[in-house]
């Protein structure tokens, strides 16, 4: 009886134990699969995040109406319109000198100001003189020039932003002190105020006479120039003055342009003239930066020209970009104060939003049913205000955050202002507001691959030969020291390697360039010498060395080659290279030696890659079964023949994976390339200059990139590309490695 109970007890214990084991098994299974799925999920999440941040770059521009109202002042023509930087307040300048400030949200009149006009005095023309603030000048039928500024500054009252509008009269003067009877009717009028506060006016009267007036603010002197003689009988149809007041461009009915240099206030010189179009140039203006000239013609053409350096070091305007044509004559061009955007408006009130650098017409729509009298970008170029002759005011939201990043701009050659030809340029930030960011990823991709190339040139042979030696030739004792030593190299933080490369080896290499260049040559020569010496030792003495230790015999010869290189370099340099090889290379070969260059990076990055390639390929070489090598030896193959014909093919899959993993590491490596390259985004394969890799670019620039700005997103795109590259390389490595293994590694 008791025995029976005992047995039952035991059985229940066993089943309990089984259950526990099963339960543990289940829990372990869940945890392990969670881990696996977790890894896949997090990688997917990273990928999705990168895509999420980069995708807005590809969004096309959109313009939508945001507010519309009628100023109820139909009798007075609207001469100018403008917005504040928050698009909360707008102002209109009427023909009679009244300036009204309105609230954008409800169209309510906030403030009424008045220009000091005399009774019945009317404004003939008005023009804004600055891209950074709302300074404008008007010319009246009494030949007076009034400069004023519409200020809309924010005031923080109880933490609430209130825009306070006010008008500041800056100056009042006459068109001309000498003669004002002639200039009663003004047809064209342009005004600029530069950073020094100097004012520049240019106008054309109804007799097609061109005048320039300049006010020098420091000396408080007016300069007046009549350009009547300079302008031929052709009717002037448009005018433009640069922001800095250095150039005046005159567009003519014949399609010709005249370029006047007005930087010398005492003398206005005609610099150049050329034919831009077969039709009359009906609208011109300079884009921000005072370099590119946007131009519209009566045939509806829209073009951008900028000056290119000619062979004899002059500048000549060239047509660089063409945009979608308007169906009728272009009447006005307004430029953005933020970027290379400009709008062109034609006589049938169709508005085009163009982006100069990319030659793209981003949006085209009919802005009004009535004739448009004036328009303007908001200071941040995120809105447009358009006024028509019926006093309708439309405010449009412009969604155009990243006009400069088309596929062409990111991956193709772009003709940027100041360049002689289209080029791949990466230059994300500049010193001034006028700077145009250049986001060609090609130099970065090139840099990444250049660094990788030099690293692989250095590391693949070294790591592979080391792996072959350790796995096939070295005595066990030596192998046991070499293998872990190389593997420990992988544990070196890349910052340390980068630091050493950038701050120690770069100057060292530069100072001892001759020695550095000599060493590889001498190593090869001395290696051959050592083989010769080895062979001349009698066989009986040689046999006493254990197998594989014979290679250690080379070591003293390597030391000798180092010493020799150091000793000989000075003499060689003095006699062959005029005492300084860096100088000689620059003068004779035209090679510029930068201190932080690809050579140093190849060395340092190679140092980081060697352990990866070495370890994995050594493993796969060691895994080649001895039965195969024995069979090869037994057939009379020498050790080297065995390595080349049997071991290497059998380990090819592993070696291939090792090299690809090394490649992946080199491509993604950041700190070394960041610290040792100089980060110059140039495209030149020379080993003696630097480059900028994608990873280093991200590391350098992300701290200074405004969140959600173009640079920020472009850097995310770079990261995405980097991800894609390493992903592709690893996938290809896995695929090909697998195939190689299936083919050769069946043992």
């Amino acid at each position, binding site marked *: 009886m008791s025995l029976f109970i005992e047995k039952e007890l035991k059985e229940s214990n066993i089943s309990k134990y089984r259950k526990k084991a099963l339960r543990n098994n289940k829990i372990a299974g869940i945890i392990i699969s969670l881990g696996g799925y977790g890894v896949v999920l997090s990688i997917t999440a990273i990928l999705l995040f990168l895509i999420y941040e980069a995708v807005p770059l590809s969004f096309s521009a959109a313009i939508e109406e945001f507010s519309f109202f009628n100023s109820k002042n139909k009798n007075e023509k609207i001469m100018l319109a403008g917005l504040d930087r928050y698009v909360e307040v707008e102002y209109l300048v009427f023909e009679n000198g009244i300036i009204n400030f309105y609230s954008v949200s409800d169209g309510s009149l906030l403030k009424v100001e008045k220009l000091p006009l005399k009774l019945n005095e009317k404004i003939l023309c008005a023009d804004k003189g600055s891209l950074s603030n709302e300074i404008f000048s008007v010319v009246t039928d009494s030949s007076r020039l009034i400069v004023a500024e519409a200020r809309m500054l924010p005031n923080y009252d109880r933490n609430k932003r209130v825009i306070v509008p006010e008008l500041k009269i800056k100056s009042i003067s006459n068109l001309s002190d000498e003669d004002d009877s002639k200039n009663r009717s003004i047809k064209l009028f342009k005004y600029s105020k530069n950073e020094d506060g100097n004012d520049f006016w240019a106008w054309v009267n109804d007799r097609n006479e061109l005048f320039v007036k300049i006010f020098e603010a420091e000396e408080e002197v007016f300069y007046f120039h009549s350009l009547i003689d300079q302008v031929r009988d052709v009717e002037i149809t448009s005018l433009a003055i640069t922001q800095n007041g250095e150039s005046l461009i005159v567009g003519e009915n014949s399609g010709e342009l005249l370029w006047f240099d007005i930087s010398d206030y005492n003398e206005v010189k005609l610099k150049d003239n050329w034919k831009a179009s077969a039709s009359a140039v009906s609208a011109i203006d300079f884009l921000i930066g005072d370099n590119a000239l946007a131009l519209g013609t009566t045939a509806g053409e829209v073009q951008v020209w900028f000056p290119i350096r000619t062979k004899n070091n002059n500048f000549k305007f060239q047509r660089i970009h063409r945009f979608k044509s308007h169906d009728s004559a272009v009447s006005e061009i307004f430029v953005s104060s933020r970027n290379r955007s400009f709008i062109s408006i034609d006589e049938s009130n169709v508005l085009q939003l163009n982006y100069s650098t990319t030659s793209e017409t981003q949006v085209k729509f009919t802005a009004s049913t009535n004739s448009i009298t004036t328009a303007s970008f908001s200071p941040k170029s995120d809105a447009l205000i358009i006024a028509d002759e019926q006093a309708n005011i439309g405010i449009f939201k412009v969604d155009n955050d990243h006009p400069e990043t088309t596929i062409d701009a990111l991956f193709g050659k772009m003709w940027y202002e100041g360049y002689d030809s289209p080029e791949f340029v990466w230059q994300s930030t500049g010193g001034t507001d006028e700077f145009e960011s250049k986001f060609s990823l090609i130099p970065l991709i090139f840099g990444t691959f250049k660094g990788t190339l030099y690293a692989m040139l250095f590391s693949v042979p070294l790591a592979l030969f080391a792996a072959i030696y350790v796995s096939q030739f070295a005595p066990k004792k030596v192998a046991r020291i070499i293998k872990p030593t190389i593997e420990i190299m992988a544990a070196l933080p890349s910052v340390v390697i980068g630091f050493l490369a950038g701050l120690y080896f770069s100057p060292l290499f530069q100072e001892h360039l001759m020695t550095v260049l000599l060493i590889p040559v001498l190593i090869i020569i001395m290696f051959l010498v050592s083989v010769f010496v080895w062979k001349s030792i009698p066989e009986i003495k040689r*046999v006493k060395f254990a197998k594989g230790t014979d290679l250690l015999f080379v070591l003293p010869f390597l030391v000798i080659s180092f010493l020799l290189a150091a000793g000989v370099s000075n003499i060689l340099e003095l006699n062959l290279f005029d005492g300084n090889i860096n100088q000689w290379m620059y003068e004779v070969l035209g090679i510029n030696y930068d201190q932080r260059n690809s050579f140093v990076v190849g060395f340092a990055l190679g140092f980081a890659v060697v352990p990866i390639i070495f370890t994995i390929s050594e493993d796969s070489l060691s895994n080649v079964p001895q*039965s195969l090598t*024995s*069979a*090869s030896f*037994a*057939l009379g*193959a*020498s050790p080297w023949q065995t390595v080349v014909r049997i071991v290497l*093919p059998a380990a090819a899959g592993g070696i291939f994976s090792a090299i690809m993993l090394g490649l992946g590491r080199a491509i993604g490596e950041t700190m070394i390339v960041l610290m040792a390259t100089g980060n110059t985004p140039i495209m030149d394969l020379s080993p003696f200059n630097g480059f900028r890799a994608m990873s280093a670019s991200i590391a350098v620039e992300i701290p200074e990139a405004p969140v959600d700005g173009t640079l920020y997103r472009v850097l995310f795109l770079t990261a995405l590309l980097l991800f894609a590259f390493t992903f592709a390389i690893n996938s290809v490595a896995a695929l090909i490695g697998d195939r190689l293994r299936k083919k050769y590694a069946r043992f």
Partner: protein
Amino acid sequence: MAINISTAISRETVSELLNENIVIQTNNLSLYYTPEKSALKNVNIQIPEKKVTAFIGPSGCGKSTLLRNFNRMNDLIPGIKIEGKILINGKNIYDPDVELEDLRKRVGMVFQKSNPFPMSIWENIAFGPKVNGLSNKKDIDEIVEESLRQADLWKEVKERLNESALDLSGGQQQRLCIARALANKPEIILMDEPASALDPISTGKIEETIDELRNNYTIVIVTHNMQQAARISDYTAFMMVGELVEFNDTNTLFTHPDKKLTEEYITGRFG
């Protein structure tokens, strides 16, 4: 050729061997894997030309070690020490002027486990001639065909010479290894238990192959299988704990051996 008469060789065999041309001869051959552990002790043996000589003995007796000395495969083992002489055609193969690769070309080897290279059948056979400097494809083609015919494999594989050797069956792979050894046109073929991993039918085929080769090659075969030794060999050496116990013509050794130890072994009293 003077024959060192050792106790292991019976008088009758000695007289028989006097009529043979001796190809391999060892003089007081000893081998140590470590200074303490000897694998061969004072082995003296003469192996006649164009005969099949079998080595038998219990596991660990040193028969494979002895075999692997004849093409110096033991050199690959680290820390090994060899004393005495091995003369092949009268020349000590440990002399410094002996080229290892040339020796191994002359002394071919077939291993216990078939080890074809992960290449095509053709490339497997061509490997030996190629590493020994032959490059004319036509010549190699001839050698490949001849070797495969000799190893009795030609009919089975002639249609698929470019397919991987690893797709062959186990027995075919082993015969391929024999053909591969034959491609070097060796004088001597060492076989280290060539059929131990094979089924009876494949074993039979291997034995047939050996039988066909006996007239042209000196074959030394290590085998675990006494019946096999009795079936295929002309001479048999029985070894124990690194010593050559008895070397006799096969018939004598299996019917009335000289030594009691041999008799006990072949009758299965230990092993």
